[in-house]
């Protein structure tokens, strides 16, 4: 396969993935501008490293991993000089949804925003993006056991936030 074909293949698949990359970014960054900047940084990194992606492997997992690292670099670069944005700041991604869907989105996204970042990422990859535990663990570069416990703790917190009183009897 020629390099050109490989690059075009990556670009075509990235074009299809963009809505999902934006969705994952919105879980991490919690505000639309930072989220789309994160997608842009990750896409730029992916295009310069396109040769490293093996055709036939999952491009989504690879992209999520790049996004996770880009975000960590970004937070580090900022040196925690500012608190990562309050979720209220322009952030909630309810788009053009109807009132009913907006209610769901608002409550879910507000609850997610209160989770620690590592739990948010685990919940986002498994519950929102539908990755297996194994693929999600690889994308986050952590053992499956760690992924599982982050996911369990995140879900427990969401249950308490979204369904108070509806938890364990």
């Amino acid at each position, binding site marked *: 396969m020629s390099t050109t074909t490989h*690059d*075009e293949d990556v*670009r*075509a698949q*990235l*074009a*299809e993935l*963009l*809505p*999902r990359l*934006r*969705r994952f970014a*919105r*879980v991490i960054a919690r505000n639309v*501008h*930072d989220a*789309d*900047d*994160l997608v*842009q*940084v990750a*896409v*730029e990194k992916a*295009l310069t490293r396109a040769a490293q992606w093996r055709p036939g492997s999952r491009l989504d997992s690879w992209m999520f991993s790049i996004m996770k690292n880009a975000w960590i670099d*970004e937070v580090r*670069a*900022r040196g925690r000089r500012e608190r990562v944005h309050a979720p209220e700041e322009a952030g909630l*991604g*309810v*788009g*053009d*949804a*109807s009132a*009913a*869907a*907006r209610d*769901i*989105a608002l*409550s*879910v*996204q507000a609850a*997610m925003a209160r989770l620690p970042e590592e739990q948010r990422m685990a*919940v*986002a990859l*498994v*519950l*929102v993006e*539908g990755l*297996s*535990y194994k693929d999600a663990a690889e994308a986050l570069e952590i053992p499956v056991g760690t992924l*599982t*416990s982050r*996911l*369990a703790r995140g*879900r427990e917190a*969401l*249950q308490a936030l*979204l*369904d108070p009183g509806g*938890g364990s009897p």
Partner: protein
Amino acid sequence: MKFSDEMLMAYADGELDAGTRAEIEASMARDPEVARAVERHRAMSLRIRAGYESIAQEPVPDRLAALVAGTAAAPVVDMASKRAGRGSKTARWRVPPWAAVAASVVVAVVGVLLMRGTAAPYEEVDGVLVARGPLDEALTTELASRPSDAGVGIGVSFTDREGNFCRTFHLRQDTPVAGLACRSGAAWELRVLADAPVEDGEVRPAGAMPVPVLEAVDAAIDGEPLDAAAEAAARDAGWRKARNVAE
């Protein structure tokens, strides 16, 4: 045998091997508390998934589409400086090295941009998601079909172990999804939603479902799917519960 909540979560997520699955299913059949715990995990997954659904339906910003297509000068992004410069017009621009690459993928991206979301196909009622609008309409009135003008395709219909009718469906929208809905009273409750990949611009035939939906069907189905005659009879009878199952 007692299962940890983490184990029940993994079961709800379809992560366990067949042997462990069977043990948990036996435990669910014996102990309604275990069954309820699994149901809580499933309901939470569905709710979180639905909470982010609208983002995937938003139009992708031009700058990202153009960057991927390699057709436009993309701004250099350094997130910290961008944040500082937001509101003022201080973004630096350069022509990226891939700017000359063919533009064919833009067509696909523009196609996505042209389709916009319609009314929400579901709504939350007392903590569960129920079908609304064209989805509710199609689940109630359509027989197995390809996606209609309203964008809904119906797959298989069957009864679950409680005797409720359940149907799989495809929703054709910006990011196509597929799911499983089960009749509960006068409403269709959504049990699972998953991305449904598009092939050659066509949503796959209604029979071809993403893995999470297939797993949900496997977990819920009692016996075989309905044949065409049974499906029509169930529809004509208003999807009333097929029979009562003793607790």
